[in-house]
């Protein structure tokens, strides 16, 4: 009944992995910007993960996750051939993609994987895509090769200077915006990064889209856990997003709400580590 894992790639050992999952109905409908909700075992929670890529011909979707808590640590124990109990989607509104010229896609951390599908969509309609990716060091950079296949350029920033420019993606972005006529910026990554990008592009008056990673339960508009303030109004990231106009988003509120369950997340993670091995599945 479940959804079989047909391929697993460890992108950063014990930290970030990519799973290719057999889900033909979802694969045939998935568009850039969509996400899926996963529940990996009968006692599991429902978590949203962005679709990083798809292959309708093979009936597969690709997801990338960072091991941050109990569910992702548990998921990391899954191998090729194992089944994920529930995969639901494709959810959320797809990215609005139209031919407009030059688009800069900014990705940070595992957000790079989510950004990949959006950037690819822009390239497919003929936009000139500049990818800007950042991480703490070069070992933690994701999808550089995949992005280079369709990007006009891939610009890199690392905190320690081990690759590309030493510093933040916003510095690379600002340099680029100064000398180019950019029609849109897309940013996916940690909230502080998206907030910084948004502040920067506001200065340069470049329309900017962000994909928000708020906490979700059902992912289909029933609970309101994912609500965010956009332009002073409550919006549901699951059915009205997850992409919004960056210049309207209240990022500080989102950051606070993402901390709703820090205490419980730690308890759950410790509980998993204690039981791990006994209760793998």
């Amino acid at each position, binding site marked *: 009944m479940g959804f079989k894992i047909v391929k697993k790639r460890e992108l950063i050992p014990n930290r970030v992995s990519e799973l290719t999952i057999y889900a033909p109905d979802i694969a045939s409908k998935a568009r850039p910007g969509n996400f899926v909700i996963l529940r990996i075992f009968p006692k*599991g*929670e429902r978590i949203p993960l962005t679709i990083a890529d798809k292959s309708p011909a093979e009936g597969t979707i690709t997801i990338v996750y960072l091991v941050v808590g109990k569910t992702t640590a548990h998921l990391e124990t899954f191998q090729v051939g194992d089944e994920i109990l529930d995969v639901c989607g494709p959810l959320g509104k797809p990215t609005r993609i139209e031919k407009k010229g030059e688009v800069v896609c900014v990705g940070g951390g595992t957000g790079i994987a989510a950004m990949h599908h959006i950037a690819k969509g822009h390239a497919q309609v003929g936009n000139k895509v500049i990818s800007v990716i950042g991480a703490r060091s070069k070992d933690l950079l994701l999808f550089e090769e995949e992005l280079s296949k369709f990007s006009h350029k891939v610009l890199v920033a690392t905190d320690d200077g081990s690759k590309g420019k030493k510093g933040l993606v916003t510095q690379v972005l600002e340099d680029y915006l100064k000398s180019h006529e950019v029609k849109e910026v897309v940013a996916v990554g940690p909230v502080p990064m998206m907030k910084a990008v948004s502040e920067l592009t506001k200065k340069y008056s470049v329309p900017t889209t962000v994909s928000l990673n708020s906490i979700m339960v059902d992912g289909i508009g029933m609970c309101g*856990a994912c609500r965010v303030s956009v332009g002073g109004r409550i919006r549901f990231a699951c059915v009205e997003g997850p992409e919004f106009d960056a210049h309207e988003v209240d990022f500080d509120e989102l950051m*606070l709400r993402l901390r709703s369950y820090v205490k419980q997340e730690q308890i759950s993670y410790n509980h998993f580590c204690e039981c791990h091995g006994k209760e793998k599945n």
Partner: protein
Amino acid sequence: MPEQDPAKRVKNFNEVALGYSLEQAIEEAKRCLQCKNPTCQQGCPVEVDCKQFIYFVAKGDIESAYKTIQETNSLPAVCGRVCPQENQCEGHCKLKPTGQPIAIGRLERFVADSYYAKHPCDALSGTSSCPVIDSNLKVAAIGSGPSSLTFAGYLASRGIKVTIFEALHEPGGVLTYGIPEFRLPKKIVHTELEALKAQGVEIKTNYVIGATLDINDLFAQGYKAIFIGVGAGLPKFLGLEGENLIGVYSANEYLTRVNLMRAYKFPEFDTPLPEGNNVVVIGGGNVAMDAARTALRLGAKNVYIVYRRTQKEMPARLEELHHALEEGVQLKVLSSPVAFKGDEDGRLSSLVIQKMKLGEPDESGRRRPIPIDGEIEEIKTDLAIIAVGTRSNPLLLQATPNLKLNKWGYVEVNPETGETNIPNVFAGGDIVTGSATVVLAMGAGRKAAKEVYKRLKENIK
């Protein structure tokens, strides 16, 4: 009907009402006048033949009573528990003026429970009289709540293949994610679902129609008719300052975490539980009562229901309100929330309330609450649950742009048939009426099923 003692039950999630014994049921059924022109059946949205089934109960023939109910009602154990019988069958009982109408709901529940207990195989496998399912005549239902289940039960028992598409990982809709265990045990829902499956109904979970597949895909897959029973799931918020603080929840989220995701068993189950010592629930309907009583069972010290009119105007069933008060829920009536306040971590710390008084009646006939100048109260709270209703969920509707909606965003249907403006696409339940009751949704499912059956049968000829 015997009930668990309030002091005990507030510490557990077991069902509050304990149910009749056989003797109690027979004694109650014998009070029935067996009227020549009974009115009870008219009061029932799914037209249960109350007089006939009560006749069988009085004789102790539970099997015949069950079969009588099942002819029109696919979910008797659920209905016996959650229907507002006081406005329906019991409200139409000729003994109503005496103040002692026949307890039809309790009898229905007794019949379903006893039948399932004594004849689990029969209830689950169906009987030899069940028709063979003709797979060429297949229809689809979207959503697996009471309206779709009734739609499916009616058609399956008449030999038509029904596939139900459910977006969540467990079927049942509001019966599963919304109504708590102590009011409707999950095993009851499970039994009724198994009985439907035994009749040949197929349930596919994790299918979001409008996302995974759309209506055109379903027709292309050969479904002859489609029933939309997706409910009105999008929770309303109040638009107040501080509403996005940590600790402010919709009732849908709170109940879904507890019921569907079993957060009360955290960390054995992964979904975290919203914890609260001083809980405020905003709203006065059945959902507000469910949320308040759930919070008590999860260990809250104080649970307040904040409502802007008085106890008399509350839309909740009397029995639900009565149970809530017995268990220790405190009412803050004539109180209208004006703002949520939080601490520096963005966590809820209090709710500010404007005290109200009742003025002249408004369009709904209820006296309009008006603020009393300067009377502001602040309640310390760490968990607020908003239960002021829902709106229509945009997901399927946006994916079906040619589907005609009314001005409130609900699906418009032909009142006679339940058909939408798209031929052979039907709809019923909360997505048509807005938030209403389980049994009204069931009635709508039944109406659409009758029409679908008629059309498919005409086509065979």
